[in-house]
């Protein structure tokens, strides 16, 4: 008996030890390894879908921007970034960062800021795809479509980084822990990076399909989207080089113009219009479903139970309002600026600022009579009394400036239950191509009336404004910028048309117009007549400043941002985070941002 026991135990132990490899070899049960993937076109497609998925995080990947979901809608949206500029004047404490940057008070951060020095996982994901697309058994043409899609993302991403940080590390491989030349590497020269960006975007614009046959709702980015991005990036680069005196800008302008022209002339897109100049401009910004809209090249879709946002609700109380400077930039209906046009009625009576002005003004800023039309604030029209300034207790939504923004206001979403809205984001629209084209041609010096007519004048025609001519009257407010009156008008057109679409801060930096950010953000005229009319109780808590003897709301009076500065020597670029430098000192800091400066 005892012997048996020994034998049995021995056999048991030996047999259990004998099958080690099998027993201890436990491969994942719920995920696939790289060697069995990458066979079909579908594999490439679902892989590239993950790039879109990464780009959903607008903070990390601030390209193809939309609106973040949930609470993050209050921070990360294509709409909010106007807070960096002189277009809007947010005072909400949660928009502190926008105010800091706007006023030139942002410190060197410890870790990446909003929309900052981050998103490298996106680059890695792109590079991983590029290293593997070759394994799929598909035709070269099909393969290049997906390569093009990935390179569009990479080029776009790097352009944004180079434009914000100057030199950046260009990486076109998946980095491993052994790649010390990269991990401990220096930043690459921005010109080198931008040449790489150009290669990526040109490849995309040549190889992506015109149409993926996916129904455009919103579908994948296509070749036309790539062309629009190419024209945007090239225009940025051209102007940046020109105005920051880096030379070699002409070729970039040519690329920008050519790309825009290709999209304008051969693309399937056109301006959205119903023939009503008083509503066509802002209509597409207030729609929920943009499927098939002729003007929208790419948009971000939201839907209950999948991905929703709360951006309308946050926007209405966080954005503050449009600035006096913005409102005064709109031309009069005779095509002249307010300082020159006999049609301008002054700002003594609030409603008068809308009289005889570019119809886009009234589609951007709330005219008190339009409250019922827009249901602004979702209140009974009988008790509505706009404008309403922060601090006032009368019904309705308050602003910091008196210039309530209705371009993107949609009442249902603005008062919808938390995070249930499907407010879309227009990421790329045809209108921009028209503006890019005109500006690039103007910078090239080859612009003609025909160029204006095929671009900016289409935008003007939609809102029944007189066409722009080759020799516009010089607006005194732009007389000292050292640019031609025509270029000044093209830039004005861009500011007006693209308000709230995420361009202004970038435009100011590429035009080297940082000085504009030294001007205070003001609001409506707040003289005795206006304040007693709109705020008889004297409740408004926004300060007042006199401009040429006339009092206006001074949005940041009494705050840390009262005296905005723009330091030409450093504020065009953002600082590299301290912790990024402490991990790799070779990154170096951008000029003017040093630890002891």
């Amino acid at each position, binding site marked *: 008996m005892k012997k048996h*026991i020994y034998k049995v*135990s021995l056999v*048991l*132990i030996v047999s*259990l*030890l004998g099958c*080690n490899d099998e027993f*201890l*070899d*436990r*491969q*994942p049960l*719920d*995920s696939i390894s*790289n060697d069995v993937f990458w066979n079909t076109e579908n*594999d490439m497609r*679902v892989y590239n*879908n*993950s790039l*879109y*998925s*990464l*780009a959903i995080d607008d903070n990390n990947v601030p390209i193809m921007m939309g609106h973040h979901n949930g609470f993050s809608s209050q921070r990360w949206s294509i709409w909010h970034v106007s807070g960096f500029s002189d277009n809007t004047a947010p005072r909400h*404490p949660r928009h502190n960062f926008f105010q800091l940057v706007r006023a030139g008070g942002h*410190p060197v951060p*410890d870790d990446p800021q909003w929309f900052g020095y981050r998103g*490298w*996982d996106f680059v890695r994901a792109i590079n*991983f795809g590029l290293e593997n697309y070759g394994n799929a058994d598909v035709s070269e043409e099909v393969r290049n479509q997906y390569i093009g899609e990935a390179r569009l993302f990479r080029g776009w991403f790097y352009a944004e980084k180079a434009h914000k940080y100057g030199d950046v590390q260009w*990486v076109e491989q998946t*980095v491993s*822990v052994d790649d010390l030349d990269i991990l401990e590497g220096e930043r690459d020269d921005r010109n080198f990076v931008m040449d790489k960006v150009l290669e990526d975007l040109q490849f995309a614009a040549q190889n992506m399909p015109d149409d993926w046959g996916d129904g455009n709702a919103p579908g994948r980015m296509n070749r036309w989207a790539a062309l629009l991005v190419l024209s945007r990036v090239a225009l940025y680069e051209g102007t940046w080089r020109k105005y920051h005196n880096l030379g070699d800008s002409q070729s970039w302008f040519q690329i920008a113009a050519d790309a825009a022209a290709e999209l304008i002339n051969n693309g399937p897109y056109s301006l959205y219009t119903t023939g009503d100049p008083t509503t066509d401009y802002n209509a597409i910004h207030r729609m929920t*479903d943009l499927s098939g809209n002729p003007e929208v090249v790419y948009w*971000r*879709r939201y839907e*209950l*139970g*999948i*991905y929703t946002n709360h951006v309308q609700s946050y926007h209405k109380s966080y954005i503050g309002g449009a600035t006096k400077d913005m409102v005064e930039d709109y031309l009069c209906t005779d095509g002249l600026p307010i300082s020159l046009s006999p049609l301008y009625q002054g700002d003594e009576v609030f409603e008068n600022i809308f009289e005889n002005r570019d119809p886009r003004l009234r589609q951007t800023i709330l005219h008190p009579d339009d409250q019922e039309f827009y249901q602004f604030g*979702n209140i009974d029209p009988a*008790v509505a009394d706009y404008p309403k300034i922060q*601090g006032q*207790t009368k*019904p*309705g939504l308050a602003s910091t400036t008196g210039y309530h923004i209705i371009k993107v206001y949609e009442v249902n979403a603005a*008062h919808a*239950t*938390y*995070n*249930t809205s499907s407010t879309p984001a227009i990421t790329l629209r045809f209108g921009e191509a028209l503006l890019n084209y005109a500006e690039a041609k103007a910078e090239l010096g080859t612009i003609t009336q025909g160029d204006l007519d095929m671009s900016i004048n289409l935008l003007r025609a939609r809102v029944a404004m007189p066409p722009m001519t080759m020799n516009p009257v010089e607006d005194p407010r732009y007389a000292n910028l050292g640019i031609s009156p025509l270029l000044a008008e093209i830039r004005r057109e861009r500011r007006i048309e693209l308000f709230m679409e995420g361009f202004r801060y970038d435009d100011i930096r590429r035009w080297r117009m940082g000085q504009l950010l030294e001007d205070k953000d003001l609001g409506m005229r707040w003289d005795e007549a206006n304040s007693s009319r709109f705020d008889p109780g004297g*409740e408004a808590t926004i300060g007042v400043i006199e401009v040429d003897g006339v009092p206006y709301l001074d949005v940041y009076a*009494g*705050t*840390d941002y009262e005296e905005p500065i723009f330091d030409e020597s450093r504020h065009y670029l953002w600082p590299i985070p*301290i912790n990024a430098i*402490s991990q*790799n000192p070779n*990154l170096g800091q951008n000029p003017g941002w040093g*630890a*002891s400066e």
Partner: protein
Amino acid sequence: MRALGVWLLCLYSTATLFAQSEISGTVTDGENSEALPGVNILVKGSSTGTITDVDGNYRLTVPSDAEALIFSSIGYTPEEIAINGRTTIDLSMMPDIQSLQEVVVVGYGTQEKVNLTGAVGVTDGEVLENRPIANAGEGLQGVVPNLNVNLRNGDPSQPADFNIRGFESINGGSPLILVDNVPMDINRINPNDIESVTVLKDASSAAVYGARAAFGVILVTTKKGRGDKINVNFGAELAMATPIFFIDPVTDPHQHVLARNLATIRTNGQPQYDQDYIDGTLRYSQNPTPENEWGVFNGQLRFYGNNNYAERLIADFAPQRKYDISVSGSSEKASYYASFGYFSRDGYLKNDEKNEKFKRYNALLKGTFNVNDWLTLDSRALVTTETSDKPHFYNWDVNINTSARQDPLDPIQFPDLPFYLEPGDRGEFEQYIGMYFGGTNFFPYLENGGRDTWTRNDIIMTQGANLSPIKGLNIRGEFSANFTYRTDQDVQSKIDVIANRDLAGGLIIDNGFSGNDWILNESTFDQYYVINTYADYTIDKGKHFFKPMIGFNQEWGRFEDFATRAYQLITPAITDINATTGNQEAFGQKEHTALRGVFYRVNYIYDDRYLFEANGRYDGSSRFPEDNRFGFFPSFSAAWRISEEGFMNGTSSWLDNLKIRASYGQLGNQLIFANAAGTIPVYYPYIATLGSFNSPFMLTGGARTPAVSAPGLVSPTLTWETVITQNLGLDFTMFGNRLDVSFDVYTRDTKDMLTREELPAILGAPEPRQNAADLRTEGWELSVTWQNRINSNWRYDVNLALSDNVSRITKYNNPTGSLNEYYEGQVVFDEGRGERWGFETVGIFQTEDEVANAPNQSALGANWRPGDIQYADLNGDGVINRGENTLDDPGDQRIIAYENPRYNFGVMGNLGWKNFTLNVFFQGVMRYQYWPPNNNWVAFYPFNAGHVEQYYLTDTWSETNPDAYFPHPHISTNTKQNVQPQTRYVQDGAYVRLKNLTLGYNLPETIASKIGMTNARVYVAGQNIWEFTRMRRPLDPEVRPTLTQEYYKQRVYSVGINVSF
């Protein structure tokens, strides 16, 4: 002292001259004075002796030169009584206080305590009995030195976190917890089923568990049947828990409004409350009538009163119930133990129906069958069912934790007023009366916002066999299967709330945070199997004791999870996935793992004096690549029982034991976690796989987008973390086992830590785990027990557990010395770094001049004014900043706090008088520096949340309060410039807390037996009932605040009975 007295007596006794004499007497039990049969009586220095009869009487003839008699009986302290010519010697013997021969459970076996050579802590189940604890973890806090139990908060469904001897590894790691040899969560078993808990602290004692025991082992042994009659034990305990609530809110709404305005004007130039609020709250403060509570201003409904939200939401006491019944017994052929337990704890919510409810049901069935003289079979089934039913968690804004920081001017419900805008309009608004307002008002979510309910069943079945074919040889084999099945249903259900207060413009009804309603169903099924076989052979010949043991262990597990979520309930009344109409999603997960190892232990003892032990294990784990899968982990230990040496003979009457121990050994760690808290295990750290998922980025309407993502980075050469411990120990027992002291010093080196070395972000992926860092922990622990029986009425004992340890990084690749990463020499603790870097506070700026003349602080914020914090320019460069945030250039930062608790202690005292027992247990930390984090919503810095506490008014700077602790009121959720990490707010977190106080009464046996019981006991107890700390309120030294103020710790008061028959 009695033993010492006896020894002295003995020393001075003189021999009598009688040739022979007869001595007789009676031996009784010193506790109950009953006769003691079967006591051995021996004439000292001879083999002459006798035993007492049934009535405790004896009669013995002794030689004339006999000096003394030695009385001994199992379970009683042996006594040596000098004869001194007496012919009658009566003796009352004291039951043994604690026997050195006590047997303790060790890895795959048992050992006499006196023969231990490693660092082992032991406690028996008694410390867990009759205490209003929710789980065993709570009861083990402070009991065994250097067994550190961290209770994150008071939530009974949240398990306690265990740690042995300090910070384990930057990769996480925790002790291995085995219940009857099977790994499981100790918190799921009934504390009353625990017979003993053994803590294996060093490599030597834990080596047989090899790769899983790197950070120590906790062996829990459950009770088994004994005694020859059926023993039934029943216990019932009712307890009330009350949250430890260190807040003191301002309840005067006018004061609240003024305080908030002061802070918001300072921060962004605008008051939070307008003049009407100031006037309205003043009206109410001066005359708190219902009419003054509400008003309508400019068409807006306004509340001017004070909603003491916490008071309305939180109950004073939450009930807790515990019932246990066990039946046990044994016979020659079999023994059995069966127990059933029930535990329930409710949350603090006043709403009884919607309150949180947690319940646990335990059953333990054990049987042992002696098949024949060489074979014993044993079976065990352990069944645990836990259920939890809580309100759905929306977000930190809408949950219980808001109770402490809700703005008291936020209205809760639409009021019933005679009229609203104008007389006669009540009819128009009647529909809203009683409706809840939205915002961060928890009430509507609590009542109708859905529930999160789960049930977890845990079943462990074990079949074991013991063979002892020849004398001294023991073979054991056992197989255990553990099945865990958990189902969870979480429902976010739509509620209707009033979104605004605009009576004139129109009230808006919406769904608050619940607009996107859904049902989530999740099922988890885990299977885990364990095989243990081992054999030991004991040779005990003369002075040689030799006991080798070998064994084999194999474990494998498979874990499956499936979840599906469906949106848009048809009606909140029916919560089933079928009754939804919206989009749906499904998720799944499957994992498996395996372990295999052989192990050995050899004990050799020479002459009870020299003890040697060698342990080792050869282990393989599925978590590593094939080439690095196996590891060998040996250990050695030795001890010298000095007290047994000849030269110590003179001390034997007062020194029972003196032993020094030393051990050295290696262990491995194979557990890898995805998070620092060590709750998400990683099973395939060396395999890179593509992720596949459904992205919410919609390329078409109505559907998620299928996507496959890039794999992460892995290191293909991963292998074990190695843990090397060296231990030196000293044990001594004195005065008849009354004083028992054990002291250990140790170092523990964690080598080749599996860590994610922090690399520049350009890497673009989470860093792969590599064996790249080392850590050293140094510490010591002391355990002192003093126990005594003064006489048959009085007895007491005192236990002290005191320990300390410090862990430092000894190797870490951080060439730039970035303070954002680990660096060499750094003290580490818990889930992070124990060294807090920050600024040195000069003080609070008092004047504009001071601001103007101070170093430039603009790197930290703008617009510095009197009332703001002034930081010291430590590097003298005229600006205050973080420099490069490296060790070489920390700017003006220095280490401001070591956030590792030092000198943990527990003091337990038991006092018995006749039938009364009193148990007192203090636990605490002697040194602990703590800088309260400045994250939004963490309670500490004024105006970091929506409410106002009294100290915000008294302790903030103003021109008339220049010496205040805090700066000028400002909203620190918006600007952190005054609440940077800094010396001023470092807290002294040392504390002592009265963890337990129990007063019990045992019914006299005579009475108990009359009502058919063998034992009956009633007790009252309190848990966490008192504390002392210098930490500022509202901080609790035991709860490190996180983003949300979580479930509060609680004081628990209980009454219970315990009867046996």
